[in-house]
C-alpha cells in the first residue's frame, strides 16, 4: 500500500500528534464527559490509520509491528482483568470499586477504578483496531500481487 502526495504527508505528520492527544484526553476524562475507553481507543487507532493512509503500510509497520501491537492488545486485556481480580481481592466481589473511598466526586482523579478501566480499555481497543486495519491491508497486498501475475 503506497503513500500519498507530499501535501498529505506533511499535514498528516502535524496532525497525528493532535489526534493522539485528543484520544488520550477522551480516555482520561471518560468518567466526567462523554467518551470513555472505547471512543478514545478508536481515536488512538485512527491516528495510526491516518499515518498508514498517508505514508504507506510499510512505514507504519516498521514503527509498530504486528507482534508488538498484538502484545499491547493482550496487555490491555490483562490490565482490565487485573483490575477486576483486584476488586475480588480487596472487596470480596469481582469488579468492586475499591478506590472510590479515596476520591472526591467530579474531579479528574475520582470515581475509583473507573478511569483505570477506561485506560485499559482504551489501550486494548486502540491496539485491536490498528491490528484489524493492518491485517486487512495485508490482504490487499497479496491480492494485488496475484493480479499482476
Amino acid at each position, binding site marked *: 500500500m503506497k503513500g500519498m502526495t507530499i501535501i498529505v504527508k506533511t499535514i498528516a505528520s502535524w496532525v497525528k500528534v493532535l489526534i493522539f492527544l485528543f484520544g488520550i484526553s477522551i480516555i482520561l476524562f471518560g468518567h466526567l464527559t462523554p467518551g470513555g475507553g472505547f471512543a478514545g481507543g478508536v481515536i488512538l487507532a485512527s491516528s495510526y490509520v491516518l499515518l498508514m493512509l498517508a505514508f504507506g503500510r510499510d512505514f507504519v509497520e516498521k514503527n509498530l509491528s504486528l507482534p508488538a501491537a498484538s502484545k499491547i492488545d493482550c496487555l490491555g486485556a490483562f490490565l482490565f482483568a487485573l483490575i477486576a481480580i483486584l476488586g475480588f481481592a480487596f472487596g470480596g466481589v469481582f469488579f468492586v470499586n475499591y478506590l472510590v473511598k479515596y476520591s472526591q466526586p467530579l474531579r479528574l482523579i475520582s470515581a475509583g477504578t473507573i478511569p483505570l478501566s477506561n485506560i485499559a480499555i482504551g489501550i486494548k481497543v486502540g491496539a485491536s483496531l490498528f491490528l484489524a486495519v493492518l491485517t486487512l491491508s495485508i*490482504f490487499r497486498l497479496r491480492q494485488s500481487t496475484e493480479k499482476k501475475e
Partner: protein
Amino acid sequence: MPYALCFLLFMIGLYCAVVKKNMIKIVIGLAVMEYAANLFLIMLGYRVGGVAPILDKSFLKQPTGQVAPTEPIASFINTAVDPLPQALVLTAIVIGLGSTALIISMCIRIYEKYGTFDITEIRRLKG
C-alpha cells in the same frame, strides 16, 4: 410513530441482506439492521425537552464536594434523558464493529479464493 420507522429501517436492512447478490451489499444490509436496532434503543431513552445526563460542578453545593440531594438534583433527574440505553448502544456499536470487521475480512478472503463477489457463483457446498 418514530419507533415504527425504526422497524421499517430494520426491515429494509433485512431485505437488503436477503435479496442482494453482491457480498458487500449483503454486509451493508447487515450493518443497516444493526444500526436500526441501535437507533431504536437510543430513541427509547429520549425525553422531549430533555437535558444531557451529565453532572457537572454546578450541582455541588459545598466546596468539599459532598453531593446532597437538593433542588437542582431533583429537577435534573426529572428532565434528563435516560442514560442506560446510551450505555447499551455503546456496547452494541462495539459488537457491530467487530462483527462487520470479521465479515469484511471473510469477504476479502473469499475474493482471493473464488475471484468474485457474486454469491450465486460461490456454491460449492450443496445438498
